[in-house]
């Protein structure tokens, strides 16, 4: 199973290679074929953006206005009441946001640290069992998460990791995807980097921490972004593992909020915007790395 195209492809690809596509091209005169091309591209761009923009604008509408027909593009009058209602604390939303931030923040930091350590061992050291565990990592990438969902919950339950942050963070603190990305990147760094230091008697730990870790920034960025995105968006696992309402993450809280305020779309949309906004901001700042990571792993988008 480990020979599935995505993995085999990514083995070959190196993280910085996507930069090639970013090069500037000389200006060209616009031909009819090109005109069609741009019309299609702009059309699909609008198709991608429109639901977000319309939802964003409607999150400032009043209840009466969000139900009006025909729907208006812009809110009139624009009101912040929806956000005020949601963030007032009566709805536990501030708590959901905090929970999601702690969950996603911890998972991000731990993945960067622990996956770069594992990647260092897989990518730059020789030891018995290396191939076995690395192949296992690749195989695990292909296992549907549904298969292990229930036993994973039972294991978490046995370890007292339900209904607390530990239950969210520990199973996700170093994912096979992060380890895979880190290993692939660390393999590409020249072996000479730490060789001299090792011969001089420097320990592996110091070599990792002082020589290699500062050099893995591109991979760190990718792993950090994908880990944050994964945890921030995760729904099923927090739904299962958390039972008290004050422990819900933002996604779970939103799903239940929708159940209680079914037709109050103005409120539901404001909630959705709060969930989307941080990622959109991070995405636009780091979009190049996001896309590099996804092109390399081809897996993380699931």
């Amino acid at each position: 199973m480990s020979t599935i195209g995505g993995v085999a492809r990514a083995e070959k690809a190196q993280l910085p290679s996507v930069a090639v596509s970013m090069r500037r091209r000389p200006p060209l005169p616009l031909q009819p074929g090109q005109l069609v091309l741009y019309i299609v591209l702009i059309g699909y761009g609008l198709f991608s953006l429109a639901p977000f923009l319309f939802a964003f604008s409607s999150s400032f509408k009043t209840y009466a206005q969000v139900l009006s027909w025909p729907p208006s593009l812009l809110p009139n009058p624009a009101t912040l009441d929806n956000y005020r209602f949601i963030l007032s604390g009566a709805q536990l939303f501030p708590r959901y946001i905090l929970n999601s931030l702690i969950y996603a923040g911890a998972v991000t930091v731990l993945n960067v640290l622990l996956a770069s350590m594992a990647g260092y061992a897989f990518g730059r050291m020789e030891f018995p069992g290396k191939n076995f565990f690395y192949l296992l990592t690749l195989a695990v990438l292909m296992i549907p998460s549904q298969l292990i969902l229930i036993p994973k919950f039972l294991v978490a339950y046995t370890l007292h990791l339900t209904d607390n942050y530990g239950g969210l963070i520990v199973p996700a603190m170093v994912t096979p995807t992060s380890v895979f990305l880190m290993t692939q990147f660390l393999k590409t760094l020249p072996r000479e980097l730490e060789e001299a230091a090792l011969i001089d008697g420097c320990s592996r730990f110091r070599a990792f921490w002082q020589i290699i870790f500062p050099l893995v920034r591109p991979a760190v960025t990718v792993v950090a972004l994908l880990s944050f995105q994964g945890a921030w968006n995760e729904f099923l696992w927090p739904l299962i593992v958390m039972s008290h309402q004050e422990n819900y993450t933002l996604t779970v809280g939103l799903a239940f909020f929708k159940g209680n305020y079914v037709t109050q779309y103005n409120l539901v949309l404001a909630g959705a915007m709060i969930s989307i906004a941080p990622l959109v901001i991070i995405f636009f700042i780091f979009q190049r790395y996001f896309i590099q990571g996804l092109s390399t792993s081809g897996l993380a988008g699931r």
Partner: protein
Amino acid sequence: MQLAASKARPGGPSGTRRSLPFKVNRRKLTETLTAYTFLAPYLFVLIVFTLIAIVTALTLSFFYVDFGFTTPIFYGFRNYLNIWYDLTHDGDFAAGLRNCVEYTIGVVTLQTTLALFLALLLNQKVHGRGFFRTIFYLPSMTSSVAISLIFYWLYQPQGGINYVLSLLHIQGPAWLENPSTALPAIMLLNIWTTAPTFMLMYLAALQDIPSTLYEAARVDGANSWQMLWKITVPLLRPTTFAVVALGSIGAFQMFDQAFVMEGASGTPLRSTLTAAMVIYDTAFQKSLMGLACAQAFVLFIIIFAVTLLQKRYIDANIQY
């Protein structure tokens, strides 16, 4: 296997035979211990939450496990017989699987085509390629729950989508309340969110195709259409396999969108009930953990078989 490699290592002149093997082994031992220290947190997570979990899932599928404090009761194949009965008597799991198959065929076909189409467009000489790629990718990176809430609103009878249709003088249906449109509505939403991820995979693969192939074809008088079907599509086969396989694995497990938009029971009339929702219901509402594990295992076997078939027919070796 590593031991064999170290034995075969050249060097080690006979004069130093006494001290060298010991030294080498000690260094090797330190290196091994260090490596496993680096790996320890990862191996803990991998072994506890994945490997043990897989073994537990298989074992529990032969037990009656009530989530509580009762001891599991050995059940033999009764959980599997139960599933068989469900499948042959149009039970919920049968409905869930049927919907999953329909959903996967629809989603994977359309999203793969769309992903390839978008990648081919962006692989042209385009100004602002990075800009378009970012915009196209936006739906793929946002949370499935938030997106589902937005589309729950857009799909309302008086919602944005029916308004756009009304501009074209089409009377839109009550998308989410009609059993014949509810699942297709979720399909469209999912194609919209997932296709851009696979577009990126295609785009990366397209950039690996050597331009000399196209130059040679052009010299031989091939037109763009022929080059697409004779060069691009065949050379993309490994990527297409990955896109189709990953897409199917994801689609078979659909949960979030249907759960958020249609609720746990997959309304209307079970038309949006998926296998994953049935498993969730069996395990956490009906508290039948053993049966849920058996259902999950059946789902896994189906996904695995589908992946193998796809490997066989899409990723077949091409000969030139």
